[in-house]
């Protein structure tokens, strides 16, 4: 049973500030994903929680216990590394049992737990092998099994799937999610892959320049991005932005179209997901520039009022570059942002 609390954590590397005043609470048994581009501080935050890095200021609490002064071994965590870190001089069995041996558990208990976790990760047949004889995917499984065998309160994962090829990554994603849900451990998972984040997380913390921009459920992050950064980082392709001019209280003009919106004294930005656009009788006049068939859909990049604008349309439609389309947003899907603070306006 372990809730994780991060209180006012900041980290400086010399004059470079990697993390600014991070506050985050992760509920017991929650699957939290730290998502962001490389260099956003997500791995640093994970390593501070693990105890591999010390925060410049702030506190880390795990299961109601302050741990930021403890070494990694005393924090009740285990970790899966990006390059797996499977010990090359030990067999798979000894790798999985490594932490248990360090706890001086009796042999039969070590054996029982190793076999159980190896079974969970479907690597029972590899127990006698060495890391050099394993494929990348198998090493990944050993690394996860080794972390699970510790039966930790918290499992930390640093881009664990990023070195696998696309197909294997998809397979492991589902499997990992299942195993972790079953093990009932709290999990923090660092990734730069938004699909991974969306598909696995209970909650996603989107990080940017050493700050958490939004911490919310995947669907909320997708539907109601808290800031322009989240809107343009999540979703592939990202949200479209158009400038909105005030036209009376709560009324806005966006590229010649009128919308109801928040009451605000200054100009805003209006945003819409490309998936939330459709061909209609009335709407934005959009000149198609590039048409990319993606199988199920057509991705059309067009020009609306001098701004780049993308729409995901039905692949049955016959759209050619140069065509002028009339695009209308789905009801209730438009979002508003303050261009100065870049934050969402309700």
């Amino acid at each position, binding site marked *: 049973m372990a809730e994780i609390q991060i209180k006012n954590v900041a980290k400086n590397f010399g004059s470079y500030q990697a993390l600014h005043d991070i506050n985050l609470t992760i509920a017991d048994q929650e699957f939290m994903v730290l998502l962001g581009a490389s260099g956003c501080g997500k791995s640093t935050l994970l390593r501070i929680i*693990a*105890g591999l890095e010390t925060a410049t200021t702030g506190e880390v609490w795990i299961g109601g216990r302050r741990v930021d002064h403890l*070494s*990694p*071994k005393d924090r009740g965590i*285990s*970790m899966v*590394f990006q390059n797996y870190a499977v*010990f090359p001089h030990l067999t798979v069995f000894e790798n999985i049992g490594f932490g248990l041996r360090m706890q001086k558990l009796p042999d039969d208990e070590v054996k029982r737990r190793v076999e159980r976790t190896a079974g969970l990760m479907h690597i029972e047949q590899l127990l006698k092998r060495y890391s050099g004889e394993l494929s990348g995917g198998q090493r990944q499984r050993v690394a996860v099994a080794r972390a699970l065998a*510790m039966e930790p309160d918290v499992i930390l994962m640093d881009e664990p799937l990023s070195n696998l090829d696309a197909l294997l990554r998809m397979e492991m994603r589902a499997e990992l999610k299942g195993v972790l849900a079953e093990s009932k451990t709290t999990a923090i998972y660092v990734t730069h892959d938004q699909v991974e984040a969306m598909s696995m997380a209970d909650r996603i913390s989107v990080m940017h320049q050493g700050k958490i921009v939004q911490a919310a459920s995947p669907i909320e992050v997708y539907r109601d991005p808290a800031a322009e950064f989240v809107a343009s980082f999540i979703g592939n392709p990202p949200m479209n932005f158009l400038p909105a001019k005030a036209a009376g209280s709560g009324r806005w003009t966006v590229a010649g179209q009128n919308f109801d919106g928040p009451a605000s004294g200054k100009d805003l930005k209006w945003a819409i997901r490309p998936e939330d656009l459709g061909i209609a009788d009335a709407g934005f006049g959009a000149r198609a520039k590039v048409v990319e068939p993606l199988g199920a859909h057509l991705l059309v990049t067009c020009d609306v009022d001098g701004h780049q604008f993308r729409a995901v349309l039905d692949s049955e439609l016959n759209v050619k570059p140069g065509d002028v389309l009339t695009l209308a947003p789905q009801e209730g899907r438009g979002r508003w942002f303050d261009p100065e603070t870049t934050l969402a306006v309700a």
Partner: protein
Amino acid sequence: MTAVADVVAPDARKAGRGVYRTGVILLCAWVIVPLYLLFVNTMSSPETVNSFPKSFIPEFNMGSLNFFMGFQGILMALWNSVVVAVLTMVMSITIGAPAGYALSRFEFRGKELFRLLILLTRAFPLPLLALPLAVLFIRTGLDDTAFGLSLVHTTLAIPFAVLITFSLFSGIPLELEEAAWTLGCTRLTAFTKVILPLVLPGITASAIFAFVISWNEVFAAAVLTIENRTLPAFLLQTLGEAPLHLKFAGGFILVVPALIFIFAVRKYLFAMWGIANR
């Protein structure tokens, strides 16, 4: 490429390969033949060694070697050589390896200065150290002892020990160590359970290397020892008056362990010298 060149090419290539092969074989012979000739001399009776002309085939007579082994003071010198080399080996690794580890794992103030100190030792003719130390050792009672000499030899071997272990430790991903920490290890147990088993072969190789450095050193050994001479110092001292067969047998005994050691560490030779020296 023209058609003519295409036709000519195979012949030229064949000729080139012939030259290449001959070159390789000649260079191998250049190294081996002198060693072989020393072997022939060592395996001949003292009479043969001093006679003329020489046969290029060994007669497998142990006379020279027996004479060498029976020569006054030789066994003691041989023993001294081994003791000094073993002391050097142990000291340079136990003192040098922690520094190599620190260089590979930590960023700290003064790291560059420390590296400079290590690299500096290479720009100095280190055996000259023996001169002032000779005086110092007399004052401290270390003169003419195996331990005193091994201190100087350790100075010779330590820069290599540091740089070699530095490259060995750098070859072990930090992630492995971090994984061990998250699995319940302290810094020390992570080192003994994970890092040490992985670098042990390399450490052994660099220890052997330190042994050879000490085993071969002549100048400091000759300056610092009088009664307790090492084998090279003993041979140097007797160069003027010793009979030929003693010199050759002595040279042979000096060479043999070196041959074995170089063979034992051949896998690490390039990692050790090449990378560590950059």
